[in-house]
């Protein structure tokens, strides 16, 4: 009897021990990849390489790969890798040498964000590192971020900080190279970036965000091979102050109008201590056509004031401490018209072989009122596996 009782207790105990549910093993979420091929072409007549006058023709072909890799239940690795092939007619005028290295430049760039969602918390932290390599500038960057969401996920607050360390090779215009020892002292540009972003769901159909960036730059802020011609005909390199403070505040309002049309409105105010104040407004209107296609026309307008140090070709007084003829820093108005087409193969029909989630084609035309025009086209696909 006692033996039977002992055996019965043992049997129950074993059953209890081995029937306890083990925590399910983590099943990795899908890895998402986005591959884009980008093309840009521009032309104008105010090249800063030749003192604010001359061709600005430039072509860029830039393939880019984006990876989103869930490495565990709470961690994600986001990577971005790209190569920009830049052909520029104006940079060939740095030394007048046809087919020099500057005419055809390749820029390799990559960065990676590693984010960790804190357990039993609505907070996420992340760290970043990256680099950029081109013929005259090597850059390394590091950064970090902290995000907190409300319990109902209706509000989110993010703080991001980054630091860029750019090491320049000082290529001067050929006629000024004999004076290289006296031209520039610093060959490093340091950029520190701090951003605060707050986003909120306002109604079932409206959500908005505000993002404010504070950027402080120091060191070499001019471009060594940009020329400036004074009103007496003499020439110097571009010279700018060794520090620059920028503030940019962007607002987004996204409204779901109906099952066919949404609206995405963006406004940015920009200020810096070079004297530039800029206002930018952009409207995108996603239009769903059936369940597979989305067409997104967009319009963007930018207005900016002139930098305190800008002057057109042969307008600067000789002996001025700071001077530039770069029209990127001039008083300009610009507009951009774009169209973006997205195809989402829900049924994965004939595209099942490629396992693509979506295809995107985006093109835009840029027009600046000083005569610069630009055209871009980006095509890409998103794949999960």
């Amino acid at each position, binding site marked *: 009897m006692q033996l039977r009782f002992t055996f019965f207790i043992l049997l129950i105990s074993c059953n209890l021990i081995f029937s306890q549910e083990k925590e399910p093993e983590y099943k990795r979420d899908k890895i998402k990849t986005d591959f884009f091929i980008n093309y840009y072409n521009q032309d104008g007549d105010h090249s800063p390489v030749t003192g604010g006058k001359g061709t600005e023709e430039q072509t860029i072909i830039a393939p880019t790969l984006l990876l989103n890799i869930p490495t565990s239940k709470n961690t994600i690795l986001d990577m971005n890798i790209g190569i920009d092939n830049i052909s520029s007619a104006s940079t060939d005028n740095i030394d007048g040498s046809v087919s020099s290295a500057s005419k055809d430049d390749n820029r390799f760039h990559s960065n990676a964000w590693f984010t960790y969602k804190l357990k039993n918390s609505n907070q996420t932290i992340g760290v970043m590192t990256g680099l*950029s390599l081109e013929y005259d500038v090597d850059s390394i*960057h590091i950064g970090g971020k902290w995000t907190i969401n409300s319990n109902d996920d209706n509000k989110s607050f993010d703080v991001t900080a980054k630091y860029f360390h750019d090491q320049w090779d000082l290529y001067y215009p050929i006629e000024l190279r004999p004076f290289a020892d006296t031209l520039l002292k610093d060959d490093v540009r340091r950029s520190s970036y701090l951003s605060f972003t707050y986003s909120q*769901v306002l109604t*079932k159909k*409206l*959500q908005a965000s505000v993002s404010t960036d504070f950027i402080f*730059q120091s060191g070499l802020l001019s471009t060594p091979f940009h020329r400036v011609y004074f009103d007496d005909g003499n020439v110097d390199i571009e010279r700018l102050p060794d520090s620059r403070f920028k503030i940019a505040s962007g607002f987004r309002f996204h409204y779901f109008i109906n099952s066919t049309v949404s609206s995405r409105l963006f406004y940015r105010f920009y200020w810096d201590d070079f004297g530039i104040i*800029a206002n930018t407004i952009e409207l995108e209107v996603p239009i769903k056509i059936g369940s597979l296609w989305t067409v997104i026309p967009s319009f963007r307008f930018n207005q900016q004031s002139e930098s305190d140090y800008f002057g057109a070709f042969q307008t600067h007084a000789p002996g001025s401490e700071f001077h530039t003829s770069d029209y990127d820093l001039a008083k300009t108005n610009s507009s951009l018209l774009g169209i973006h087409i997205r195809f989402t193969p829900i049924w994965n029909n004939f595209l099942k072989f490629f396992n693509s989630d979506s295809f995107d084609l*985006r093109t835009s035309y840029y027009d600046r009122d000083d005569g610069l025009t630009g055209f871009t086209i980006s095509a890409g696909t998103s794949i999960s596996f």
Partner: protein
Amino acid sequence: MKWILIILCTLLICSCEKVKPFQKAYINQESMKLSDFKAKAFETNFLSYREGGSGGNGGKAGGGCGCN
């Protein structure tokens, strides 16, 4: 400009409606995300090179390249 910013920030701080997770079908759509489309990243970058102003949109704001 100052008043526009004050009104916009006030609108954001005040929650007009408490939206539950099952009521977010509209705002969770891809086109409603509060960030730029990935296909637009290259366009945002070249705009930061060709204009004096940059930032405020998650894109480049200065440094990291041979640009402004």
